[in-house]
């Protein structure tokens, strides 16, 4: 999976195997380029991704696992910890796999989108590539569309053409004058 130096991407998976294999492929590409890798995920998913990395003959030694769950999730704290970790290690480029599937059902959509907005900001401040994983089987069309909008690096046409403008979305939620 080719990606730019700054990138905020998303992946919609429909099986645990796809989740692990594609996350591992993304991290392995970084390891080959001597990048530092992070997995922000619940322990079960992180274990699956590390095992997939091993199957792909890539060492997980250079991967740092950060726990991610609704219980432990404090948006500002989690993102600040990630940024500190990046700075402390003095690495040039970082790859992060964020397994959002562990929290996508329990977290309100607006909180999830707020988290994604913050991640988008961070990817513009650091040489960082983030891949957010979502279980598409548990997404509605509206949620999937909103997530695409939150990952504009994924899209070739202007995001407003693909998912509508923010202003239009807000206006469409207001009652119409009769």
């Amino acid at each position, binding site marked *: *999976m*080719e*990606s730019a130096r700054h*990138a905020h*991407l*998303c*992946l*919609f*998976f*429909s*099986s*645990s*195997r*796809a989740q692990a*294999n*594609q996350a591992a492929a993304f991290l392995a590409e970084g390891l080959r380029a001597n990048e530092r890798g992070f997995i922000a995920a619940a322990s079960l998913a992180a274990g699956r991704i590390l095992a997939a990395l091993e199957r792909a003959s890539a060492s997980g030694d250079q991967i740092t696992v950060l726990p991610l769950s609704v219980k432990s999730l404090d948006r500002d704290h989690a993102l600040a910890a990630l940024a500190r970790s990046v700075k402390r290690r003095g690495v040039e480029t970082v790859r992060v796999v964020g397994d959002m599937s562990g929290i996508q059902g329990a977290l309100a959509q607006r909180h999830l989108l707020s988290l994604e907005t913050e991640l988008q900001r961070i990817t513009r401040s650091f040489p960082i590539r983030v891949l957010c994983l*979502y279980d*598409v*089987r*548990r*997404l*509605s*069309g*509206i*949620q*999937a*569309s909103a997530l*695409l909008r939150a990952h504009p*690096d*994924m*899209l*070739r*046409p*202007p995001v*407003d*053409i*693909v*998912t*509508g*403008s923010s202003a*239009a*979305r807000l*206006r*469409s939620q207001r009652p119409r004058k009769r």
Partner: protein
Amino acid sequence: MADDLLDIKAAAAVLKVSETSLRRWTNAGLLKCYRVGGRRERRFRRSDLMAFLESHAMHSTAGSLDAGHYCGFYTSDRMRAQQTARFLAAALSEGGEAFVSAQPRVRKAVVRDLVSEHPGLREAATSSRVTYVDFGAGLAAQYAAIEDALRRAAARGAHSLHVFGDVSGGTADAGVSFDAVIKFEADLDKLYHSQREVPTVLCLYDARHITGEQTVALLGVHPDTLRVPLTTMPA
């Protein structure tokens, strides 16, 4: 030198657009270029590129769209009209032609939004540069109409064609299965990419009436929409 002549690759890099877009704009007389050598290759002055960039950015808030087969998603009728109006604005401000396939009430809302956001395009929106057709006679008829539009545009030597289809709106009451829509789109994708001049196509879907998996399936048959493949591997 600030005004060296740039070849088409360098000029495309300056504007961060494709070489196809540059060819389209020069063919339409929107962007000045010089022809050099026996093969009459295009050369561009940097100052002309900068002037074009400024005028184009001011004229079209939609910006330019590279040729390709895109899908988009809306969550209200109003959003659908606005997305379509922006798409058409990009087509018409480039001097191109458009083929709009949607229900009459949708087309009316689109033209209203287009004229409201881009008053300078009022005349173009109601001119022969835009062909409006109903999306309601079935997918086979729709495919034939698009094929015909592409053939006519090529025969006229149209320098660009933008195609819009309100697929959800057009198939909502027709009892069309989702699988049939996917096949229709896959066939169209082949048709578009077999053209000498690939058109710029936007197919809109109502996100309120599809699942996440269907969204991914639609992106799969509109692969130009994504910079990065969005795939789901089999279990």
